[in-house]
């Protein structure tokens, strides 16, 4: 086996190219889903689910295994880590920019604070940057997104919910 000659950094770099199945413009590294990598006889990858019922969890885990297999790594173990729970704050700055360019408003920062969930917060339109926007539906095409509409440019857009 060649696994022992691989560095942790190398594995992380490979994994940084794995796309998220539901928002393919983002990688799982952008989302902050990969918690840690331990390189030993087996490569152990710690991943965290975004939502309890996220249907993408298994697909993501399989993609991680497939990616490492493609690089010649045979022994891969996926460890699901729950604590601390994932929050949208873990989405990287790079990831937020990619989301915006893709037409999805990135989550407001500080998502762990309760008042943000209950208070009203202006969500900027990813197209014209106007803050004059309104909720169309708390739920969108996937569990992690809400539907919004810009009241200025009238474009509907999705907002990555802040949790």
């Amino acid at each position, binding site marked *: 086996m060649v696994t022992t000659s691989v560095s942790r950094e190398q594995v992380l770099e490979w994994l940084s190219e794995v796309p998220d199945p539901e928002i393919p413009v983002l990688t799982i590294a952008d989302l902050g889903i990969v918690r840690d990598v331990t390189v030993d006889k087996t490569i152990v990858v710690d991943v965290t689910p975004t939502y*309890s*019922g996220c249907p993408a969890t298994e697909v993501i885990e399989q993609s991680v295994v497939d990616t490492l297999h493609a690089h010649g790594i045979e022994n891969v173990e996926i460890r699901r880590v729950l604590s601390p729970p994932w929050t949208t704050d873990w989405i990287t700055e790079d990831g937020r920019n990619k989301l915006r360019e893709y037409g999805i408003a990135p989550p407001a920062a500080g998502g762990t604070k309760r008042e943000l969930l209950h208070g009203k917060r202006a969500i900027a339109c990813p197209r014209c940057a106007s803050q004059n926007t309104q909720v169309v539906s*708390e739920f969108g095409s996937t569990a992690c997104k809400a539907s919004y509409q810009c009241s200025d440019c009238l474009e509907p857009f999705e907002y990555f919910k802040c949790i």
Partner: protein
Amino acid sequence: MNTGKGSVRAAAGPGKGAGRAAVGASSSPEKSAGQTAVGTASSRDRALLAYTTRLGDNALILAQRMIELVAGYPELEEELANANFALDYIGQARMFYSYAGELEGKGRSEDDFAFLRDENEFHNFLLIEQPSGHFGDSIAKLVLFDSFYLLLLEALTRCSDERIAEIAARAEKEIRYHLRHNTQWLVRLGDGTEASHARVQESIDTLWQYTGELFAADEIDQLFTECFDGPVLGAIQEQWQTHVKAILDEATLTLPGDGWMASGGKQGRHSEHLGYMIAEMQYLQRTHPGASW
């Protein structure tokens, strides 16, 4: 808000509850036989397994009720909300059942817990197995239950069982979001038209009899509270009452008075509705044992 560290012991006290025989129904008989002292290693294990399984049961049965409504909602956005919420509960059920399988140590998977147990082995609350009824019934049920579940999860994040605390921390964020959404609907229905007000008031009045069970601590609850620094149901009940009253006030609805409360779900004694639901839920696995795809 933070009542009751002091009341933990009082509430949990050496259990002389009459429920001992009935309560342990889902755990293995050999384990409960001969155990008398509360807090021994084996009663501690038994309580943890039973408690974890119940948490899974509540999440799964509620999810299944909501899944029945998929493709039947009056409008698209609520259709999506309902399906997304159900998905969260299923995710939570999977985490609780996986853990229960590990605790039990007999190689049962999350699917075995969901699909290969009989009605009386499910220890969910009667409240959530009630038929979904009309939209107002569903919303009323979700607000009543999630107001409780959120407080329970908050308390569970502080319990001494690490895994339960982790799952609760994950789930708490989701339920907070559900509750906010469904509360807005309850207010809109209650403070809406004369017809919507009357119908949703009836929903609340009908479901109210099933809320007592949420707070009626039995032996498993007491053991879990004592052994794992778990939730104190008396304290949660006070907070729940205050919270629900505030919502109903805003919705111009009336809080039902004290009355007779149904019980038994936690011990596996269910209303007739659950059997039909489980029969449908387990149809494939029962008809084609070992089927996979």
